[in-house]
């Protein structure tokens, strides 16, 4: 019994199909509890007023945007090394989800920035790196769409993901060097002295769990769809060959 058994598409679908409703239900429950708790049952912050509550969407989506890319990187590596098709398809399935998360983080950040910083957009390092991350997602998805042969597409996008990760990290430090930021530093680190107050921390934790579960559910669902599309195409080809 090893983890690689799940690389078998049939086994993957059989295992994940019953998991999806649980993950999805858990995500909905967590988001409902977290958002209601966060929006209605926490006090307003001293300096920020009610705008502080946007963190319940902003922070989890931003975290998932980065983690989705990390997951794609791992999946791409597994594809390049062990050539499991499920892994390549999982990377493909995660990309649009990650891109949407990036967009949500950018949008909620802009909504928060307007009353707080007095501007929708500033060329702040964090904002800029997220914009660059968004461009990387765009290129990755566009490359998948442009290549008709699935194996070739998986190979090329995996290499792009590897090279892109290196350059994304480089860009992150380049923009840090390039401009000083408006964005606050990390307030969620476990070892920092000054962290977010517990009143906001617990509902945020619930929202984080909700976003993670939502991501898992969406990626599993999309991967399953991709596998079924692939199988359908193979069946069609078989039928055509049988006719000819």
């Amino acid at each position, binding site marked *: 019994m090893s983890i690689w058994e799940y690389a078998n598409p049939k086994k993957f679908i059989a295992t994940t199909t019953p998991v999806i409703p649980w993950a999805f239900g858990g995500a909905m429950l967590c988001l409902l509890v977290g958002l209601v708790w966060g929006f209605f049952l926490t006090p307003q912050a001293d300096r920020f007023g009610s705008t502080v509550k946007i963190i319940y969407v902003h922070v989890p989506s931003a975290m998932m945007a980065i983690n989705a890319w990390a997951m794609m990187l791992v999946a791409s590596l597994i594809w390049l090394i062990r050539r499991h098709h499920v892994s390549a398809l999982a990377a493909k399935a995660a990309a649009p989800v990650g891109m949407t998360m990036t967009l949500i983080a950018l949008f909620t950040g802009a909504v928060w920035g307007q009353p707080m910083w007095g501007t929708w957009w500033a060329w702040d390092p964090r904002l800029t790196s997220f914009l*660059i991350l968004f*461009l*990387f997602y*765009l*290129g990755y998805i*566009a*490359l998948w769409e*442009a*290549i008709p042969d699935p194996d*070739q597409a998986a*190979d*090329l996008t995996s*290499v*792009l993901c*590897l*090279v*892109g990760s290196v*350059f*994304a990290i*480089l*860009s992150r430090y*380049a*923009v840090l*060097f*390039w401009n000083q930021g408006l964005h606050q530093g990390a307030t969620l680190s476990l070892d920092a002295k000054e962290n977010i107050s517990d009143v906001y921390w617990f509902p945020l934790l619930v929202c984080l769990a909700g976003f993670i579960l939502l991501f898992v559910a969406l990626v599993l669902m999309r991967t399953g769809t991709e596998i079924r599309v692939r199988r359908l195409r193979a069946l069609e080809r078989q039928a055509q060959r049988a006719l000819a």
Partner: protein
Amino acid sequence: MKALLLRDLRLAIRAGGGFGLSLAFFLIVVVLVPFGVGPESDILSRIGPGILWVAALLATLLSLDRQFALDHEDGALPLIATSPLPLEAVALAKALAHWLTTGLPLTLAAAPLGVLLNLDPAAYPWIVLTLGLGTPALSVIGTFGAALTVGIRRGGLLLSLLVLPLYVPTLIFGAEAARRGAQGLEVATPLLMLAGITAGSLALLPFAAGGVLRINLR
């Protein structure tokens, strides 16, 4: 490798297109900027280094899609691939040829074009130095992108979408070093980072490009 390099250089110079075209494009972009932002000389001299860098970057992008696509169309690429030369070396030779026909002329042309942007006299050596250091990285990164999209019909637009985000660090450090040099500030950090990016891309990206070419020729 030398033969391939010479062949590419000869093709670029004699067949027209790449060589003069990107230089002309560079000139036009630099000429258009004052029309867009107004002719005030103090604004122009302040944004001058950045304009030259962005224009050089766009001009390099212009000739990238011809790099492998032409060889792929006329069937020369599979022949090159079957030669004893490894594809990694092919990618490096192609990048070198691209730099010699695009990056180097752009670097040399940047100084005279700086006059049009009313550049501070102190800025000229820095512009030439940073472009000379940075354009090899642009060529190698672009070669990787061109190798990635070689099999795709009308891949030019996709190529720009893939390559431009990869250009971000080079552009930031290059333009920053040029700007700081022009203002007489400390330049060691961005200059070293720029050189590091160039050295790193030169060392590693030909392997990625070679691997990608092998996948595309399968």
